[in-house]
């Protein structure tokens, strides 16, 4: 199945809230080898002025990939996940993600560009908190190999 170029420019509906749990923040920090006490210990996070433990700089991917699944799993989009390679990723934070946050994500398909047998699919996840205030933006580019590549 071919990539549906008509999906470029599409915006998906907001996701159900992702509840950021302390243990999820700790488990992710452990998995990437992040040792700063503020990722793990509430008292250390308080000492730096944070309400609760602080997620590591790439934690937003956990939130974003749930939103990105809307595109990957959309039969209309025509993306065969076994042909996908992650090409680029960028995080931009308005504020750090903290345990206790309830995060809602809006997925935008910014562009789909075909070149040399590859389709480059760039998505942008705008993540905001329960008050609708922006938290982070996650831009991800997937390279999808064509059928004959």
């Amino acid at each position, binding site marked *: 199945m071919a990539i549906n170029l008509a999906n470029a420019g599409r915006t998906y509906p907001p996701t159900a809230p992702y509840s950021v749990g302390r243990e999820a923040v700790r488990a992710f920090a*452990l*998995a990437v080898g*992040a040792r700063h006490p503020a990722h793990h210990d509430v008292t250390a996070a308080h000492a730096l002025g944070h309400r609760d433990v602080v997620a590591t*700089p790439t934690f937003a991917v*956990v939130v974003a990939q*749930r939103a990105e699944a809307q595109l990957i799993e959309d039969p209309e989009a025509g993306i065969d996940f076994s042909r996908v390679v992650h090409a680029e*990723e960028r*995080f931009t934070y308005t504020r750090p993600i903290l345990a206790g946050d309830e995060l809602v994500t809006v997925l935008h398909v910014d562009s789909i560009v075909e070149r040399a047998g590859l389709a480059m699919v760039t998505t942008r996840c705008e993540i905001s908190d329960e008050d609708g205030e922006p938290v982070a933006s996650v831009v991800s580019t997937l390279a999808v190999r064509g059928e004959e590549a």
Partner: protein
Amino acid sequence: MSRPVLAELEVGQSIGSLAVGLDRTSLVRYAGASGDLNPIHWNDRFAAEVGLPGVIAHGMLTMGAAVELVTQWAQDPAAVVSYGVRFTRPVPVPDPGLATLEVSGVVGAVDLEAGTARVDLTVTVEGVRVLGRSQATVRL
């Protein structure tokens, strides 16, 4: 060690280095913590079927492990306000054994007005770069 002071930073100066060993357990731990259960990161048979030399690390694990150098240098987990990479080479993780990420960083730019510095990271495995354009902006 005290926190870096923006006005004292010089473009090109080193922020240090970090070596991160990844084994298969690291990949399974990251899969669980991140929810990325793609079998190319834990199943040799599947990896071979899709044309890979074997199980490879999640690009996002490499990205996440590399930025730890920046957090350690800034001494504040909330200091990183943006971070982007290109995934240029896969990182095969042997069984048994380790793939070792060698991470180093330099100050790439200083913006006194914005109160930020850009750190340019170099991430290699056995001398080969696995991330490209790996840059983090840090508020100091």
